[in-house]
């Protein structure tokens, strides 16, 4: 059942453009999907290694800018050397953007994981701020506050298949859906492998993890690389979909949105960022129909506080536990004890459930 559910969800979302005629709603879903990807990348760090990156938008923005500049081309002089880049196909930009963001993840990881916890948070915030200031002030390259307009939409295909340029909302919707499905599968394989177990071990008890031979830096840096690259990919998708980016992309609010998606959905679970992304990607649009904008933001905040208070581990772990209790009433004691143990430290409670249950599925 548990393995079928993602497929059902995928099938359902694949039908959405067939019956949802309102282009505005479709647009909202595309943007929500892109942020979902970013939230999934953040979840890899925050959920599985337990390190909070509060500058995650930096990876997203770097991916967006690198991808945009690669496909737009640029010309600038550094120390008197003139560098001119002719426009490349957007798809290459997307890949380069992800690679650049992954490289930044590597550098930040190397730098920041010597000192973890609060220091990592500070380093990531500073990094995002530095990147924002560069994008704002390096006008020759980034156009500064005047933004980079006219970013070409993605073109898919090969010489022998012909090309499709993704102008439409539905096309972009499917593109994002494919990337989410792909990211889901890859993250699932990663976190259920020895790599993922090492990351979870470091989150749960670093001293003990080290004592069985797990290298702290190796696995945290690895997580940072993948997390950065995936966020960069999401940023690239954003740039080619919206077709204009400016330094506002590095807004702290964007990071906060990702963090909220991960925490309300359930950090350290595969489906958490997707559920959280759906709720907080769509909530503003749904609420808009019923209440004024002022009330809307208040409700948004109340919704978040309610979720965090009532389901401190997030929505997905709560549903999983409810489901497990229904599925095997004979083992009530075990699941009740498990629930209690998980509640004791709500900060990281739910995350293990995904690991535990995935183990059962495989064994």
């Amino acid at each position, binding site marked *: 059942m548990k393995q079928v559910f993602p497929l059902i969800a995928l099938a359902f979302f694949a039908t959405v453009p067939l019956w949802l005629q309102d282009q505005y709603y479709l647009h909202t879903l595309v943007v929500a999907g892109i942020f979902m990807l970013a939230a999934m990348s953040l979840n890899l760090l925050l959920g599985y290694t337990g390190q909070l990156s509060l500058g995650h938008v930096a990876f997203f923005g770097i991916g967006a800018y690198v991808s945009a500049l690669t496909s737009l081309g640029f010309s600038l002089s550094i120390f008197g050397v003139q560098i001119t880049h002719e426009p490349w196909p957007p798809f290459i930009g997307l890949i380069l953007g992800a690679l650049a963001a992954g490289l930044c993840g590597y550098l930040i990881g190397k730098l920041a994981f010597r000192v973890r916890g609060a220091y990592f948070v500070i380093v990531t915030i500073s990094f995002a701020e530095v990147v924002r200031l560069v994008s704002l002030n390096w006008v020759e390259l980034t156009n500064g506050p005047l933004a980079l307009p006219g970013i070409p939409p993605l073109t898919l295909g090969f010489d022998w298949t012909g090309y499709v340029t993704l102008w439409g909302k539905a096309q972009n919707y499917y593109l994002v859906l494919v990337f989410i499905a792909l990211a889901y599968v*890859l993250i699932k*394989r*990663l976190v259920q*492998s*020895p*790599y993922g*177990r*090492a990351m*979870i*071990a470091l989150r*749960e*008890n670093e*001293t*003990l*993890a*080290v*004592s*069985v*031979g*797990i*290298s*702290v830096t190796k696995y945290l840096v690895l997580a940072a690389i993948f997390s950065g690259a995936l966020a960069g990919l999401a940023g690239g998708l954003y740039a080619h979909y919206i077709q204009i980016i400016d330094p506002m992309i590095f807004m702290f609010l964007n990071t906060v949105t990702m963090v909220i998606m991960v925490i309300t959905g359930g950090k350290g679970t595969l489906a958490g960022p997707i559920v959280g992304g759906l709720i907080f990607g769509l909530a503003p649009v749904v609420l808009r129909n019923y209440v004024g904008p002022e009330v809307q933001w208040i409700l948004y905040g109340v919704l978040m506080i309610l979720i965090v208070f009532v389901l401190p581990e997030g929505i997905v772990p709560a549903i999983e536990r409810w489901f497990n209790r229904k599925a095997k009433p004979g083992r009530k004691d*075990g699941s009740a*004890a*498990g629930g*209690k*143990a*998980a509640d*004791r*430290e709500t900060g*990281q*409670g739910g*995350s*293990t459930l995904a*690991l*535990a249950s995935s*183990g*059962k599925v*495989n*064994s």
Partner: protein
Amino acid sequence: MNAQTQTSAPILAVEHVAVHFGGLVAISDMSFEVHEGELVSLIGPNGAGKTTAFNVITGFQRPTKGHVSFQGTSLDGLKPHEVTGLGLVRTFQRTSVFEKITVFENVLIGLHRRTAPSLLGTFLGLPGERRAEAELREQAWEILRLVGIEHEADELGGSLPYGDQRLLGVALALAADPRALLLDEPVSGMNASETGRFIDLLNRLRAKGTTILLVEHDMPMVMKISDRIVVLNYGRIIANGTPSEIQNDPEVIAAYLGGGVKNA
């Protein structure tokens, strides 16, 4: 047996190790050796420096002075996970299990050192990786059966009874494939029958050739199973010998065991 092993090169050598925390001297000058296949106990009153000695040996604490070597390899400057990588694995007094993860997953994590996954294979879900994963699970069951907690595989580590948590801590260390095992008060908090089971486990490990260094307060157990005992007091070694030698050592009796040693 003892006379034989003494002549061979030691598997673990601690040479003139000193640890100072600011002005406090935790260990003043400590030297001892452990030979292949031996079970050596490190005893002493609380605060004598036993756990600090463990921390130094396993790389969690840099010594102020002195060296530690394992199988002839110097451990100077190695990080804890690198020390483990050489086959020198420890357990902890307190933080002994991953509390919010199932017992089975605990052991899978412990098996980390025996895995050699490839990133590409993992992402592609290649059959090789799946086979390795299946083998890993089989090894995890073996270890659970060895320590005797296989019936609790699906429980969360933190929900086990205390004695079983200690066993799981040992299972984690065993999963890391130790040549030498350092156990920090493994039977503290265990009742007599649990301790008995644990001694059986130690004997099974010794039969497999695992060298064991033990820190323990349970004197009857220490006297029963040790080949040799090293006694620490106020950060220095006051005696090093067989259990019977230690029991009759006047300095040990005065400093630590007290007059009741004959009845212990």
